[in-house]
């Protein structure tokens, strides 16, 4: 852009996590989140995030910083970063997904949900239950009934492994 914009000082934002830690980031990094963008447009420079805990926020800021500097040349680098980013425990993933949902960061939301969906895909319902510790509260009769109602979906071979 114009040379005048380069000399301008970068606008900063302060994000405050649910456990009261404060983080200073550039506005251009923060506005990738729709929630933060809306607040910034209303004139906020201090953004309290009562639904996002420090642990998730650190990771998310890291993600936003990386994606803010996206160019053609670091495409591969970002891909590797994303891959590492989602390579974490389910508990982390769920915390991140709640935070990304609250912050409205659609690209992150898509990536996290895709990661979780990939773990459900191709698995038998029994394996999914074990992986996510889902407690089946159906009676065997109820279960049989649901299976019958949508028999098509339960045809074929499924992956029983828990990885």
């Amino acid at each position: 852009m114009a040379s005048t914009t380069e000399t301008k000082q970068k606008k900063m934002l302060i994000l405050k996590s649910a456990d009261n830690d404060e983080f200073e980031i550039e506005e251009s990094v923060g506005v990738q989140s729709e929630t933060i963008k809306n607040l910034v447009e209303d004139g906020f420079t201090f953004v309290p995030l009562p639904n996002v805990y420090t642990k998730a926020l650190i990771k998310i800021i890291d993600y936003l910083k990386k994606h803010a500097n996206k160019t053609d040349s670091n495409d591969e680098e970002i891909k590797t970063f994303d891959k590492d980013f989602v390579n974490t425990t389910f508990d982390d993933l769920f915390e991140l997904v709640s935070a990304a949902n609250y912050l409205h960061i659609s690209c992150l939301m898509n990536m996290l949900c895709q990661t979780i969906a990939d773990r459900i895909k191709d698995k038998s319902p029994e394996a999914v239950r074990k992986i996510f510790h889902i407690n089946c509260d159906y009676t065997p009769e109820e279960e049989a009934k649901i299976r019958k109602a949508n028999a098509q979906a339960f045809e074929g071979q499924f992956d029983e492994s828990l990885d």
Partner: protein
Amino acid sequence: MALADGDLPGRIILPLLTLGGIALWMNYYGFLGKKPRSKFLFWSRAGRVINKYFVPSYEENEIALLEVGDSKMDYLSQLPDDVLSFILGHLTVSEAARTSILSKKWRYLFAAMPTLEFKCLDMFGIDSCNHNRCSYYQQNFLKGVNQLLQLYSGRKVAQVDFTFCLGREFSTEFGQWMHSISRLGVERLCLSFNCETDYPIYDSNLIHNPNKFEFSLELLSQASSLKHLVLKDCIVQPSTGIRLNFLKTLSLCGVQLASGQLEDILSSCLNLNQLELECCELPYKLHISGTVTSIIFFACSGLEEIDLGAINLRSFECIFFSKVRFHFSFAPMLENVMINFKGTAAMPYTFGDFARDLPAKVKSLTVKAGQSQIKYFPTETQMFRNLRELTLVLVLAYDFDIVKISPLLGVCRLLRYLDIVQLRTIREVSGSGIRRPLSPIYHTELKEVKFGGFYGTKPEIEFAVYILRSAMVLERMFLSPCFACYSGSFTCEMEDFSFEERERNSIEQELERKAISRNAVVIIE
């Protein structure tokens, strides 16, 4: 996965360290270190996050959590329903439907998915490139769709996508599906009758497939919530007397239209706003009427004459592979026009009869042209008397003399915004050609000029100086080697080039103090 005992500190600390949040890690560590039952405290904290913000009704969960410990929590089911539906949205319908058996909470979750996608082979987890296997799965597909539609009955679905290659023999089943879909409150329906290719125009076998599905708009006459309809690769049956007044946008792709058929469809959709035709086989003559405000033609064939007689039409975009003659019998509101005749020598027409016939209200015009045609510029000053915005997409050789386009500015007296994009795809030498020296014509309205594909060659700088010297109220001029130009359904971009400091300085020097407008700013990107 949940953590095994003793695994915890490493798993928390390592990611934190790698994230560079060392100070915060200290904070955490301090917090964990002070309390002997750190593990449980941490998880109860995490548990509270979920309890407090996502399932506020489960007050007792927090206690249960402490008792259960850290290894068996069902965090997934505790996510809010809309997040879970969003996750399910990344699965195929069948995969998502299987989750109904996980537990009671999951019973109807998949049925809350906003989009239902039925795709021939995808439903069975088979790579959709294997089109030749479709026929083996036809019966299964029919059964699967019937079951799923039944499961969804009584619910609301915003969008339904169908992609399959059923022939005419299945029209009874198809009719029933449309009946079921009509009751789902669907707003957007996409019906693709071919799972092989996205661009039927490149495959003439497909467009003339004798067993092509015949779709009757009558099937949707009860779908009163439907706003957007997309039809791909089918024949649309005559629809006289049918009313689809709820429809706002209609998009036809790879559809064969006989003479009078599009007119028929338009008279059935009395509230249509947007019409899009892509890769369609059209009759030689079309008359567009009705309430439509925006029309897009992309890569359609067969058309030779088109008459725009739509009272509300504001925007018209087209890319044709051959010359099409335009009539504007009644388009009093038309403001934006994009016209691109690919690979034809249409420039004399575009800047001749076409320009002369354009309705008076047209304010913005986008034209794409090759360099061989650049000699045909209009000379009549009355031609573009109301034009405020002009975008020229020029396909040029590297040494093209851009100054040649300056006569065009002379006939656009009210122009406020000029956007030039140079696509230098041709490598041949164009030859310099002789032209008369520039005599500046003063422009009293031109405020902004954008020049994409600007490399700082001699003619380019001469052209930029010409504009600075003739535009009396110029506010901004952008010069950039990068550009993005919209052309029908796709955007063409070139962004990997920028000036070095030295080049930029020398361009700046050449343009310095040339502007006659006091407010002019030149921005070199």
